[in-house]
């Protein structure tokens, strides 16, 4: 059986990934690649990363058997990887700690980030405060409106939040703006990308930092169930929580991998962010990957109830996993995600992030079709506190 060893030296996953940026960024990316190669297996670096994950983030995050909900669904057993219990409430911090440790070793006192829902912005502001770094977060003005609480959290953590008013004023535009900042301030600035997107080495590096999720899961499932799950299920926007869970399992071919995209108001309506389900390959944000684009190659605006999935691209490794059929990708609508959100509140006393609710919704569809001895492991990538306003509004409640 072929052992998975992607990407290649220039960051390619088959035809996807690579480095598609202006010459002005090439030197910085070469330097970043070299430094990451130097430290990724450095004993001291790895030890510090693990120490921080344990004592600052609170890892390992538990796996929890959602027995009541599984019983109510009447099929397979649903287990939840509780990334929502991490410090700052999502998986994002695994990656920001890794990149911040690298930034420190590279002598960069200033970090910048893009953010959609605000989770990555908060995770970046958090580690910047933790290590005494200057922090600037770019956020679409539309997202700032939708995620006011997270904006305030970043400000409390002493980050500067810069509203982005260009383009569709969402995550993709924030990423453009962060790239521009990086080009301009390349000497003192480290760009902490929040997903497995962007030019090489980011998709690989973010995957490596996030794959602690899957490594822990492999151990914990043996302890809990004495075997590995039949399915891994995770939501996919850029895809960092999904790749973090999937990656350690890529060579375990009896474990099926399912990425769940944001189906918005339904794929047939065109108002969604299901890039892998409906998109075509192209080049955006420094890599080749599936994109939501029109016939002229312009990137089109996406829609999702969850700001964190509202992205017209996807990590290039997911594009490869789709084409190679190692993983499957499905879409779940806003309404189904919302129903799963409420179900988890009701049956398990856990308020999930709307992003994670997409993965839960697919699990809720799949579980009843399977025998009771089958196991689904769902990545509960974040908690739902940040979504209180959105959910309340949809229920006609204003605070």
């Amino acid at each position, binding site marked *: 059986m072929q052992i998975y060893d992607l990407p290649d030296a220039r960051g390619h996953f088959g035809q996807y990934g690579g480095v598609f940026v202006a010459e002005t960024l*090439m030197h910085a990316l070469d330097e970043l690649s070299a430094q990451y190669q130097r430290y990724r297996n450095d004993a001291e670096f790895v030890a510090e990363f693990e120490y921080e994950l344990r004592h600052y983030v609170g890892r390992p995050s538990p796996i929890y058997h959602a027995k009541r909900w599984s019983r109510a669904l009447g099929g397979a057993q649903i287990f939840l990887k509780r990334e929502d219990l991490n410090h700052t409430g999502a998986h994002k911090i695994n990656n920001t700690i890794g990149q911040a440790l690298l930034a420190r070793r590279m002598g960069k006192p200033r970090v910048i980030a893009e953010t959609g829902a605000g989770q990555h912005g908060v995770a970046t502001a958090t580690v910047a405060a933790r290590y005494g770094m200057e922090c600037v977060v770019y956020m679409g003005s539309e997202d700032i409106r939708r995620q006011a609480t997270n904006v305030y959290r970043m400000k409390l953590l002493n980050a500067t939040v810069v509203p982005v008013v260009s383009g569709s004023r969402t995550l*993709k535009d924030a990423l453009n703006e962060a790239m521009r900042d990086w080009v301009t301030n390349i000497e003192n600035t480290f760009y902490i990308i929040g997903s497995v997107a962007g030019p090489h080495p980011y998709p690989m590096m973010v995957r490596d930092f996030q794959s602690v999720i899957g490594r822990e899961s492999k151990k914990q499932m043996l302890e809990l169930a004495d075997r590995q799950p039949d399915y891994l299920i995770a939501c996919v926007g850029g895809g960092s929580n999904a790749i973090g869970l999937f990656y350690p399992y890529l060579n375990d071919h009896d474990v099926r991998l399912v990425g769940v995209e944001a189906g918005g108001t339904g794929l047939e309506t065109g108002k969604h962010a299901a890039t892998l389900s409906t998109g075509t390959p192209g080049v*955006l944000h420094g890599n080749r990957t599936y994109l939501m684009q029109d016939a*002229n190659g*312009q990137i089109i605006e996406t829609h999702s109830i969850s700001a964190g999935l509202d992205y017209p691209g996807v990590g290039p490794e997911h594009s490869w996993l789709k084409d190679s059929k190692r993983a499957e990708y499905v879409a779940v609508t806003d309404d189904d995600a919302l129903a799963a959100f409420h179900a988890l509140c009701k049956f398990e006393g856990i308020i999930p992030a709307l992003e994670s609710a997409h993965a839960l919704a697919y699990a809720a569809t799949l579980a009843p079709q399977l025998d009771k001895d089958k196991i689904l492991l769902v990545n509960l990538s974040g908690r739902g506190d940040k979504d209180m306003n959105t959910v309340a509004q949809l229920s006609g409640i204003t605070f």
Partner: protein
Amino acid sequence: MAQTTAAASAVIKPGVDSRIGKAFARLRQQERKALIPFVTAGDPDPEMTPPLMHALVDSGADIIELGVPFSDPMADGPTIQRASERALKHGTGLKDVLAMVAKFRATDEVTPVVLMGYANPIEAMGVTRFAAQARISGVDGVLVVDYPPEECADWVDTLADNEIAPIFLLSPTTTTARMQRIASFARGYIYYVSLKGVTGAGHLDLESIAEKIPQIRENIDLPIGVGFGIRNAQTVQAIAKFADAVVIGSRLVEELEGSPRDQALARVSALMQTLRSALDAR
């Protein structure tokens, strides 16, 4: 050592017989430097672009860089992004841009036109189809901002088949090794980005440009244009002391943006003439 693929070395070097080659030869003979304006196709609207291109030539342009609008222009500053957004509001696609070039070409056989943009609109059309259509339309060079040499061997071959010059960017952070790699692919001229930043930024360091140019000449045997952040006659003059061409983009686009539609051509022409005189008066 520079990587030279067999196919890339077979590129017909736009020399005496290409429009870009002829333009630089003519300028050398006249001991003049090239003035290269950049405007975005379809800004402020598609009807305006061909007459604007002619007005640029009439007011002193030697080569025209025509921006292909893209929804996510990562290497551009706010001015050129707004130009892209205005053009996209009119639905200006790559096909339309090529039609504009063809229309311009119908009455100007001489002035080289270089398209500048991002990879995705070209890939959406298909690289082979694009290159063939670009040739028919009269395009002379193409600069794809997000195709670095590492990712573009096929692209360069396809352009070569259609006698179109791949234009490449160099930046203040480009190492000698990378210059040599770029030299093996680049044709037409080299576009040196004069600052660490995006188009239209305002912190030009003339001294560092003056230091970098000889290093580029040692490694690449092509005319050197300098752009990004050049905003006035004084800077144009200073840059022309060591470069072969000066590219002016955001400042022109600003002029276009700030003018009522019926005065836009006159005001852009006036600005061009000022720059042209400064360039020729050295």
